[in-house]
């Protein structure tokens, strides 16, 4: 495997196609040497990243994902090219802390080492995440968060679109 590899994936922001992003995340986790639990974490984290970035857009928008990995970590950047707007179910009516976007942010905070969601223009969000490879975590299943994981990234940290 090269020292550092990358894959780019572009797909419509159609909910039924998000599985493509998840499956891609699994394959890349495998290529990076991640264990099963780490791969599952990345799979869910990439799904949440896409959902958060594309929530305000209709299915005609496009999600562009860039996966960058080496032996120590996988970084994923997500940019949504807006086209039209959707009518997302934002959980209005649910109590604070239990809305899907809040649950999504909580999941990302627990599953990866760092992540960012930012506005790069009106209704134009982009984000990135980094998950480090920790072989010891697949040997002993994590049951709680806050295990002293670093919150820094040294690959894939470019936030430009």
């Amino acid at each position: 495997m090269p020292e550092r590899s990358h894959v780019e994936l572009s797909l419509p922001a159609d909910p039924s196609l998000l599985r493509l992003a998840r499956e891609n995340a699994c394959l890349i986790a495998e290529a990076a040497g991640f264990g099963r639990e780490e791969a599952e974490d990345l799979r869910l984290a990439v799904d949440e990243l896409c959902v958060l970035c594309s929530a305000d857009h209709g299915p005609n928008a496009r999600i562009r994902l860039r996966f960058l990995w080496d032996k120590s970590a996988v970084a994923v950047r997500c940019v949504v090219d807006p086209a039209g707007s959707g009518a997302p179910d934002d959980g209005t009516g649910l109590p604070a802390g239990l809305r899907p976007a809040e649950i999504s942010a909580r999941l990302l905070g627990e599953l990866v080492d760092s992540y960012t969601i930012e506005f790069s223009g009106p209704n134009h969000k982009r984000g990135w995440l980094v998950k480090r490879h920790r072989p010891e975590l697949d040997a002993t299943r994590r049951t709680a968060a806050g295990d002293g994981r670093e919150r820094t990234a040294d690959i894939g940290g470019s936030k430009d679109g």
Partner: protein
Amino acid sequence: MDENFSVSETDRHGVPVVKASGELDIATAPDLRDRLAELPAGTRLVVVDLSDVTFVDSTGLGVLVAALRRFQHDDGPGLRLVVNRPQILKVFEVTGLKELFPICPSLEEATSG
């Protein structure tokens, strides 16, 4: 309907059991939401069987949270979940929702008492 996801409803000892199978995500969560919405709000106990769910994201969790509130009674929650896959249970753990939902490891346990 996503061909990789299905929702069915059965009755077990008088308890409606809504069983989801496949990946519960932003594309399929509306199917589960719609099926749960068909049940009367006053139903004493509803079981959502997630034992054949292989993936759940925040959108799926949002549907379950809404259902938990809808079937909440004065004497406690009227919704129980069946979860027996570690990766699904982990999602409830890391979001703190495990403390909110009655989660059972088997359908037998969820529909008893």
